[in-house]
């Protein structure tokens, strides 16, 4: 049993950095395309929905619809960037490219690798979320300097979604299975968590369900920061995101242990 743990857990507090740096080096070669790819989608939603629907919706929660939507899109972009990095890129490194296998020949453990991948996915989520935040701020849809409070939350949101996606990566036999996670988990979350309209619009049972979803906690922290409003229940939201970051990490490490070291 101790052997199982030793292989699945990080060996120390810094081994993961080597994995992060490997991914950073690979990313640097395609940085521009990667940034544009991560920013384009949420930008289109922000301005497409923001201005298009904004005309119909008018003001919402005491602010313009674009400004309301900005917080939701920042959180969503962090969710998507972290998820896609984990289910596609990390899966490729684990499966087809055998990068993880090569790393396991060294003194790194599976736990080190998973931690490095999570930190890297959170970094990409941070870049994507921060990109949207900067644009929203420059255009006057987010308030300076309170917007700065959103930045650590974006990173934590990225970590939580990377960690969740890592469980899916550990379980999926092939790429084909990821589409279920996207359509059955991520897309519903977008509508249940107040990204595009207030949670209060939902039937009561869905409102209750939203309390358990990580994106709702991320939005409840990010939106007030962008709108320069006080955020309620900060401890609860941060705690919930931390649980989503930590528990799936251990679960995925154990699943990878079973999958890669039979």
């Amino acid at each position, binding site marked *: 049993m101790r052997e199982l743990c030793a292989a699945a857990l990080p*060996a120390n507090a810094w081994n993961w950095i080597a994995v992060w740096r490997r991914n950073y080096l690979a990313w640097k070669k395609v940085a521009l395309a990667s940034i544009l790819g991560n920013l384009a989608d949420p930008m289109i939603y922000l301005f497409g929905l923001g201005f298009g629907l904004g005309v119909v919706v008018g003001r919402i929660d005491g602010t313009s619809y674009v400004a309301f939507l900005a917080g939701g899109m920042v959180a969503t972009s962090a969710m998507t960037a972290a998820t896609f990095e984990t289910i596609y890129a990390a899966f490729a490194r684990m499966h087809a490219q055998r990068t993880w296998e090569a790393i396991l020949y*060294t003194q790194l453990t599976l736990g080190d690798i998973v931690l490095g991948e999570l930190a890297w996915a959170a970094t990409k989520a941070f870049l994507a979320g921060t990109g949207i935040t900067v644009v929203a701020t420059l255009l006057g849809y987010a308030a300076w300097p309170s917007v700065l409070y959103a930045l650590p939350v974006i990173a934590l949101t990225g970590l939580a979604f990377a960690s969740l996606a890592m469980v899916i990566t550990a379980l999926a036999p092939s790429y084909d299975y990821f589409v279920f996670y996207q359509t059955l988990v991520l897309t519903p979350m977008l509508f249940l968590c107040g990204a595009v309209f207030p949670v209060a619009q939902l039937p009561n049972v869905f409102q209750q369900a939203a309390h358990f979803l990580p994106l709702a906690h991320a939005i409840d922290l990010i939106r007030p920061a962008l709108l320069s409003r006080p955020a309620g229940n900060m401890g609860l939201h941060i705690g919930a995101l931390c649980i989503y970051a930590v528990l799936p990490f251990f679960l995925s490490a154990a699943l990878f242990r079973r999958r890669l070291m*039979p």
Partner: protein
Amino acid sequence: MSTVAIDLAGVSKTYEGKVVVDGLSFRVAAGECFGLLGPNGAGKSTIARMVLGMTSPDAGEITVLGVPVPARARLARARIGVVPQFDNLDLEFTVRENLLVFGRYFGMSTREVEAIIPSLLEFARLESKAHARVSELSGGMKRRLTLARALINDPQLLVMDEPTTGLDPHARHLIWERLRSLLARGKTIILTTHFMEEAERLCDRLCVLEKGRKIAEGHPHALIEEQIGCQVIEIYGGNPHELHSLISPYAQRIEVSGETLFCYAPDPEQVRLQLRGHAGLRLLQRPPNLEDVFLRLTGREMEK
């Protein structure tokens, strides 16, 4: 410093009800080249993975470089270099970047890795390719880069799973020559192979495997001498059964495999004499090799 690099004692492994390794024991001395020889599915790769602590045995004890594996495999792996069966280099990186990134996994600083990269490239004969992307390299160059990568932590032990499978003869000979220079430097090598020639040329000792069991162990030439010990005549064409009765009085042993008849003859001239006048026969007389040993021990050929 222990003189035993690897000690396997009574190791077994079952995957999904199938026994892959069956009560296997062997010892590899420090500084020797030890070969695991057997056909595909004999359990060679599983043994290599178990030595690295990447697969846990169901039964038995494994000690590598004085450290119990898999319990403290991380400690052992810090002093092991690995050349896997399938290349897992970073294709989007250059040769240099591959080495740099891999060195960091061993906790080396960028400066430390950069200091040894020139000597590794020289060893792998890749000096002119430092800035080439891995995707531009030939199969032989990729293998040599993998070998250089395996040396980045200055390992005492090299674990190689089919190091020359899929290479052309020229590339294969270059790898063999590089491996001999590593042995000359005192490194210990354990390699898996299904190439008889590779096993004969490189290995000080061999463990011949079939279905996860050891069927013979020893120095390649000693094994050949002990199991065969005479010239071999391969006979093609003709009816194997007819020929069998004709030459059996003069043969120590005869094996039929497919359309080929293997005649193990202390006095090959007598056999040739018997076959004179049989039209359409092709005869090939040669010294015995490990293929014959495997045929003798298992009743079948290793490849095919």
